[in-house]
């Protein structure tokens, strides 16, 4: 199936959704037309998901297809792998990515390898949606991102939208994919009042179905002086920094990865070829992370030296602190990105 990404079509009046609503609308539309799609997880039934990802689905489709589970990630994510092997298309929610420990065998030893181990005869069309990100004082077991942990393991696709439009299109792509897809969503963008929401994540989201392709990054701002690569929440931080930098005479290009794996290396390399400078910003731990992978990609692919050494910004290699003062000191933000870019371009200004 190949419906087009309708990002370019603009209706007269925008229909704005939060990422939470966009996700639940996508799942609901897919459940409507494909009886093999079902949802499982903790508090995803009557409550509609702690992060609003299944709002209204229980009322529409009932408890058989929108199934609340006990706190038993090992059991229900393992069950989803078996369901996917036998013709169903389960969407399961791991409430916080931090809880991956108890169910990781089902994820990376079963789901990710099912197709390989069966010579392609048994696929694993399941979606595991999971919340990531901190910034709201929820401490070290509810604030991690773990992008690189999942991106590192072969056999799974990993996506993270920065806005509602992409969330809907990526969810439809994820449910229809024959492979396991880890669908991460960032708490700071989710549109749940108790977490605060970045305004830029609420955008025009068509009611009709459309696909945002997995594996394709998006250039969300064009510029010629430096490439800023972000994902999820850091896209909005990079955009805010780019806006301030523009006033200072620096034109930053901003790339929204949208997919962690498979990484859209082409888009990144093409942009850095043009700008000659690169800063990768993510809110996962720094070492062995997204930034390292992207800088390695650029170093391997581009022939000439860049105008200045490529850099990365992320959370340092310690557990995310509970105290807001410490947490915000460590997490990336627009101001830190702005100062880093000015430091990198020192010789130009």
């Amino acid at each position, binding site marked *: 199936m190949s419906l087009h990404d309708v990002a370019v079509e603009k209706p007269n009046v925008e229909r704005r959704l*939060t990422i939470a609503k966009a996700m639940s609308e996508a799942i609901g539309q897919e459940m409507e037309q494909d009886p093999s799609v079902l949802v499982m997880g903790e508090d995803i039934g009557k409550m509609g998901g702690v992060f609003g990802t299944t709002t209204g689905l229980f009322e529409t489709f009932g408890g058989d297809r929108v199934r609340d589970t006990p706190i038993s990630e090992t059991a229900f994510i393992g069950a989803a792998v078996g369901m996917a092997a036998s013709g169903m298309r389960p969407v399961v929610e791991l409430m916080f990515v931090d809880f991956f420990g108890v169910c990781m065998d089902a994820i990376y030893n079963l789901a990710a390898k099912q197709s390989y181990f069966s010579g392609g005869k048994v696929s694993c069309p399941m979606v595991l949606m999971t919340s990531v990100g901190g910034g709201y004082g929820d401490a070290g077991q509810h604030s991690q991102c773990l992008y690189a942990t999942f991106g590192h393991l072969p056999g799974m696709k990993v996506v993270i939208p920065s806005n509602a439009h992409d969330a809907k299109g990526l969810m439809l792509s994820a449910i229809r994919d024959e492979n396991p897809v880890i669908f991460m969503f960032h708490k700071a963008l989710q549109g*749940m009042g108790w977490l605060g929401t970045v305004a830029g994540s609420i955008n025009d989201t068509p009611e009709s179905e459309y696909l945002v392709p997995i594996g394709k990054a998006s250039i969300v701002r064009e510029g010629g002086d430096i490439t800023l690569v972000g994902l999820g929440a850091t896209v909005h931080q990079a955009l805010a920094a780019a806006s301030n930098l523009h006033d200072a005479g620096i034109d930053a290009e901003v790339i929204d990865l949208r997919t962690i794996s498979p990484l859209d290396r082409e888009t990144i390399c093409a942009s850095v070829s043009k700008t000659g400078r690169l800063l990768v910003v993510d809110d996962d731990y720094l070492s062995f992370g997204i930034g390292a992978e992207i800088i390695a990609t650029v170093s391997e692919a581009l022939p000439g030296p860049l105008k200045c050494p490529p850099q990365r910004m992320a959370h340092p290699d310690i557990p995310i602190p509970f105290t807001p003062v410490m947490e915000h000191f460590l997490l990336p933000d627009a101001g830190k990105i702005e100062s880093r870019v000015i430091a990198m371009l020192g010789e130009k200004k």
Partner: protein
Amino acid sequence: MTDILVPQGQWEPDQEAALATWLYGEGEAVQKGVTVAEIMVEKTSFEIPAPASGALSISVREDEIVLPGQVVGSVE
């Protein structure tokens, strides 16, 4: 001008409701029926649909506590 009201009877009277999110900004065009704002009641969200089409005017800011039936803005 049509007032935008907090919905009534959707949550228990003793539960505290807050205006969580405005999906559109001051003065922006909205179409009748789209969700203009969301109310959060103990981690569950409720939608406020636009009562008319027109330009949005906001009178209650995000994170403020609201009561059922309260006017939070208008469409003109």
